[in-house]
């Protein structure tokens, strides 16, 4: 009874700031969608709405890891390079041995399952390297992850000699990326994305681990003094982000039946943008996976509306920039209003 009394002043603000921003961005999403439907023909059709969600599965999967890392106040710019590296490795590991004169057709000849496992381990390895520099050596995350991005993409380029590997692949290779629910256009990558979003949501809301991530972001020193092993948490998150990038890389490689060294160029920026659109703030342990998801759909609506208006693809860069700035400023404005 007394507890209820004490909580009374907060009744007006039943929902948390994170949920508030997510709802706010849902409002923005609806607004953007209505505008897009008015100016772009056929934009409101169910098939198009379905595409808006499905076409961006890879950025959303990457966004999960990037969101949690941003909440701790760090960056992960290595995900794009990691996607490319993992895709190339998954191809290289299972290509036949000595099947051709062309060095790009020869691989290690491992079974596909083993190849996937090894590629995922390498992806987590990239995350572990990030974690070592950031958590142990306390080097700024933005610089280190830009460096590991170059290392990962560079390694992918070395393995493919700057091009791609797409020959002498086992039958099983293309299955993961193309298998789906028969009779629908729902594919495995989409299902994996949905499962990962649900898992991440439960993780974020229900586990102590996740709540501590917020504390680390809000005040790392206070987190350390209250007995949280900050470097352990950062390490786990970077490895998680590496794993997610690995999953994305393997699925993309399987979908295209090729390991391309230039795959996923700029995905790290897209993942960062959707997290920011979803209200994740680097300055204080703030944000949510659901918000990131909404942010991804907003970005998808804006870019596909631009394509629908026959704007040149070069507009994408400018649109992403403008939308991000508007999002950051409007979210801050909305939070300030709410608090005053």
């Amino acid at each position, binding site marked *: 009874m007394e507890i209820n009394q004490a909580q009374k002043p907060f009744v007006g603000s039943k929902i948390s700031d994170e949920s508030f921003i997510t709802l706010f961005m849902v409002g923005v999403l609806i607004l953007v969608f209505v505008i897009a439907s008015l100016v772009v023909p056929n934009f409101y059709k169910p098939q198009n709405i379905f595409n808006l969600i499905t076409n961006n599965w890879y950025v959303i999967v990457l966004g999960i890891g990037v969101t949690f890392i941003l909440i701790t*106040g760090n*960056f992960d710019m290595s995900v794009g390079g990691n996607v490319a590296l993992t895709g190339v490795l998954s191809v290289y590991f299972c290509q036949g041995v000595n099947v051709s004169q062309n060095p790009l057709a020869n691989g290690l000849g491992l079974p596909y399952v083993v190849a996937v496992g090894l590629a995922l381990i390498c992806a987590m390895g990239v995350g572990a390297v990030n974690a070592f*520099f950031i958590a142990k*050596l*306390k*080097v*700024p995350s*933005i*610089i*280190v992850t*830009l*460096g*590991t*991005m*170059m*290392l990962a*993409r*560079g*390694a992918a*380029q*070395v393995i*493919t*000699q*700057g091009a791609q590997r797409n020959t002498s692949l086992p039958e099983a290779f293309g299955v993961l990326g193309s298998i789906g629910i028969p009779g629908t256009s729902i594919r495995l990558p989409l299902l994996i994305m949905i499962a990962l979003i649900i898992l991440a949501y439960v993780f974020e809301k229900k586990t102590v681990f996740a709540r501590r991530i917020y504390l680390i972001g809000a005040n*790392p020193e206070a987190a350390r003094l209250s007995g949280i092993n900050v470097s352990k948490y950062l390490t786990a998150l970077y490895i998680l982000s590496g794993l997610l990038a690995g999953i994305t890389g393997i699925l993309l490689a399987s979908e295209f039946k090729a390991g391309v*060294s230039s795959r996923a160029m700029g995905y790290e*920026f897209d993942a*960062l*943008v959707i997290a*920011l659109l979803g209200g994740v703030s*680097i*300055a204080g342990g703030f944000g949510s996976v659901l918000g990131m998801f909404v942010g991804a759909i907003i970005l998808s609506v804006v870019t596909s509306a631009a394509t629908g208006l026959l704007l*040149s693809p*070069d*507009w*994408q*860069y*400018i*649109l*992403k*920039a*403008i939308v*991000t*700035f508007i999002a*950051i*400023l409007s979210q801050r404005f909305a939070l300030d209003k709410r608090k005053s």
Partner: protein
Amino acid sequence: MNTIKNETLQFQLDRSEKIRSTIKQFYIYIVLVLIVLVFSLMKLDQVAMFGRGHFLSPDSIINLLRSAVPIMTLSGAFTLLMISGYIDLSVGSAMSLSAVVYALMILNGFSFLPAFVITLVVGIVMGFTNGYLVMKLRITPVIATLVTLSLFKGIALLIVPDGLSAIKGSADKPMPDWINYYARKEVFLGLPWAFWVAILVIIVLVIVQRKTILGKYAAAIGGNRIAADLSGINAVRIVGLLYILVGFFAALAGIARASYMSLGDPLSGDGMELDCIIAVLLGGTAFSGGEGSVAKTIIGALIIICVTIGLMTVIPAYWQVVAKGTVLIAAVVLNHLLVRDNVKA
């Protein structure tokens, strides 16, 4: 007994501190000399020492210094910004956009001076945009400048007509020959105007950092922002000015690049931000700000150019990215080991 022990301990500490600071002071010169030495000893079976094709042949050195012009122009101002504890990741895009704008104007009949001045004004506007977003709207520097990276790049790509990869002359509308005078025509010691302008920029910025109030204020802001505010330094204005300077010199570097290539390539500045960061970190500037040296950044810039040009002759192009990533990580670690950060975050 105890005091003696303390004194010896203190003495040992002093000595290790002294060794560290000596290494810190001189390591960058040693690294540069070592790298030059390694590359000049390579392929000696194919080319004569200082002969044609050798790393240290006059042609090669001139080529190296000409390639170094953009980063030499830009990294000085970048250092000042990083000394104040801020960062600008948009410099590469700013450089590309300037190159495109400059080439576009020259292609459309502008003469040298107006095109030059207008491009520099564009650079100032870009720097002002960054400064405004970071200092007035208080968006985290990394995020604000990453987003303007996308913005400037988009504008540069948009200016280039569809179907073309760069602003360049065509049969019915040729690019004037003189566009490359600035960065190619030899004026002194076999080096072009752009190089000597870069040298002048470096000298001015070294003086600014060491002898002027702007340099002192930048270090004060980077060392302790709150203390700087309390002692009456207008950080918003100082750092805003530094962002404008970085934009200005990015434009100057872009002009040099456009002139060197005789075209405006919207991707020509890609990766410049990383080169600048490597140069600054190699030069021993603390990442969190507070201390640093423009002069040493320039040595760092020369190291990067030596590595890039030197590697080009010995390994396939697809190794370049790995090599640069390795240099970046090495620079970060070296910087971490040698520069004692007054850890802020």
